[in-house]
């Protein structure tokens, strides 16, 4: 089989192949490496060097636990869960909560946040990405995590529930609280600017 054939395979098929031949695990790594790294960097607020170490640990852990993957769950949710847990463990170990980091939010994401949170008039357009980024990073950890998953990783409620291993209702509550906290911060910033 050539590379293209492997690239066309589903996650589930790649898991089965990796279990048969470890070299084929590289295709799963390639598929998720960038996404997971971005997520880890966001969660750790820009610790790129640490993110590489965490990422390696994540893929080793995923390999060890390949047989525990249950196909009733999306593979991406399962692998994000492992990445999330490893990153949180790392952050607990270093006992630090950095807050200054630019999330590099693109226009599509900004629009999605603006529409969903109904804050079109509250955000200074020139500083929009910067403001949103700094506010997200200043949120309470639990709120920051759901906001990152929802708006930066484009995960739906079920996926967030599967990644965080929290009931969907709890995820909805956390998101609602996160949005409220976010709006409060936006209004506070607007007040300071004006």
């Amino acid at each position, binding site marked *: 089989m050539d590379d293209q054939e492997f690239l066309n395979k589903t996650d589930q098929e790649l898991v089965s192949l990796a279990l048969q031949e470890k070299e084929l695990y590289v295709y799963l790594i*390639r598929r998720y490496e960038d996404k997971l790294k971005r997520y880890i960097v966001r969660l750790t607020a820009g610790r790129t060097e640490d993110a590489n170490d965490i990422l*390696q640990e994540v893929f*080793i852990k995923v*390999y060890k636990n390949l047989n525990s993957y249950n196909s009733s769950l999306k593979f991406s949710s399962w692998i994000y869960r492992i990445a999330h847990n490893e990153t949180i463990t790392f952050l607990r170990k270093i006992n630090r909560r950095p807050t200054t980091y630019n999330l590099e939010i693109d226009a599509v994401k900004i629009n999605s946040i603006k529409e969903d949170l109904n804050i079109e008039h509250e955000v200074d357009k020139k500083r929009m990405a910067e403001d949103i980024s700094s506010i997200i990073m200043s949120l309470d950890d639990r709120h920051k995590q759901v906001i990152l998953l929802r708006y930066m990783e484009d995960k739906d409620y079920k996926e967030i529930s599967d990644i965080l291993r929290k*009931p*969907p209702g709890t995820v909805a509550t956390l998101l609602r609280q996160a949005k409220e906290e976010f709006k409060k911060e936006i209004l506070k910033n607007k007040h300071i600017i004006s």
Partner: protein
Amino acid sequence: MSQEIEQNILKAISRDKIIPARKGYFIAKDYFSWIFFIASVCMAGLSGGIIFFLFLDYDWRLYKYLDANFFSFILLAVPYLWLAVLFVSVFFIFYFFGKTENGYKIEHGVIWLSGASVIILLGSWFWWNGTCQKVHQALAEISIYRVMVFDRNDEWNSLKWGSLTGTVINAESNVSFKIVDREGSVWQINASSLAIPGGVNIVNGQKIRLIGRLKEANTFLADMSRP
């Protein structure tokens, strides 16, 4: 960079001879979570049932004869050991349910409600079929349990409130006899004002519960008795 990471991961897997854990390991892990979850539910049901049984078994009518305030009287009725067992079991119910593969999907409110319902039903069933009584009596053979629950929750064994329980060892007459209490202390009982039902004599070896007051060291003035 990307290729470097891929290679590092594969190298680490080869170097450390990492192999995926067997599927059976994960299935067993999930089964264990379920087994411990069910065991915790049963333990919670049993402890709930025993708490209910001990409350029912408590001699609430005794309060009006004793020199105790009602709050202290209620506090004596609380089976702290079983309450602790109940709390620990409830904690483990949540813990092990959360550890099951799909346990996290259930809302906490639903777990609380269904957990409480199952504990109440199971506790009632254990109480109704006599399991609670049997377990309580069987555990009373163990000295630490006797001290922590059986004796501690004995409203009939509080001298400061005026109750005394023991076995008659020297039945001179119905108005003067000696009893030995659970701790082995011997008490001279002055029962001149004790109303003993007609035709009933105090005999050696008889278990007796008395209400009255302490007169002097090891002498108890009894006003009421119960078998």
